[in-house]
């Protein structure tokens, strides 16, 4: 597992208070991990802070799963 994936999962576990085993790459923040709209905003902001990048609103809307987040960050932080 890449370093980015590990860091993303750590943030998700911390912010949503879910068990690490549930944070699979295909897990949906809202459907599988119980996030509400406020949680998703917090997650995006936490990703921005951790990876020193900016996630525009239209991109943030498409980040629905753990995998989406990892993919966006890998693409935009090289």
């Amino acid at each position, binding site marked *: 597992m890449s370093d980015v994936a590990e860091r993303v999962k750590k943030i998700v576990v911390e912010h949503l208070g879910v068990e690490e085993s549930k944070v699979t790459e295909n897990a949906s923040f809202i459907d599988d991990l119980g996030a*509400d709209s*406020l949680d998703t905003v*917090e997650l995006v*902001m936490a990703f921005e802070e951790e990876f020193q990048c900016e996630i525009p609103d239209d991109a943030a809307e498409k980040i629905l799963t753990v995998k989406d987040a990892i993919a966006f960050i890998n693409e935009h932080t090289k």
Partner: protein
Amino acid sequence: MFDLTGKTALVTGASGGIGGAIARALHARGATVVLSGTRREALEAVAAELGDRCPIVPCNLSDADAVNGLVAAAEAEAGTGLDILVNNAGLTRDQLAMRLKDDDWSAVLEVNLTAAFRLSRSALKGMMKRRWGRIVSITSIVGVTGNPGQANYAASKAGLIGMSKSLAAEVAPRGITVNCVAPGFITSAMTDALSDDQKARLLAAIPAGAMGTGADIGSAVVYLASNEAGYVTGQTLHVNGGMAMI
């Protein structure tokens, strides 16, 4: 009741009459109070009176970059996260609407409303993480009743009320409340500028028969900032001696 020991507050416009009184009230309940304003000397005078727990961070609220950095600067000075934000700073540029210049409209909206939004946005980030926060904006009775010559000021104060309700709904699940305090006729530099005739007419309209004081506003802010007021959000607490019962 209403103990704020261990909490950190930021008060804008803390060099003014009402702002200074709010800072004193929060400080008296045990909070660390970061004093902000444009006049460093006036802030230093308030700080000298309070003694400890009152760092100073001057800021020009019409400078967007300075405003966006103010919460971080206050947290750095206080050495802790910000728990309580009091958007108190305000200015007036009174003129009848037909003669009101665009600049006077924009300047009032920028400081009274836009800066309050920017500060709230910054403050919410840390409050969300800590699952506790209080934002109190000082609006005005005229934001609800209107007042001739104050289209810009009244709009900015009504704007604070609408903004606070929206923010309150957004962040309520995180233990953060967002409220307003609406002073009526309070003795301050702003009301000193009114003519004697205006003052006499206003006093006749106040059932309590007297002007309010900064301390009356400070007490209302302490209440809304307290743990005890945790279930009160999106509200406007009118402190006006019965001048308007809304």
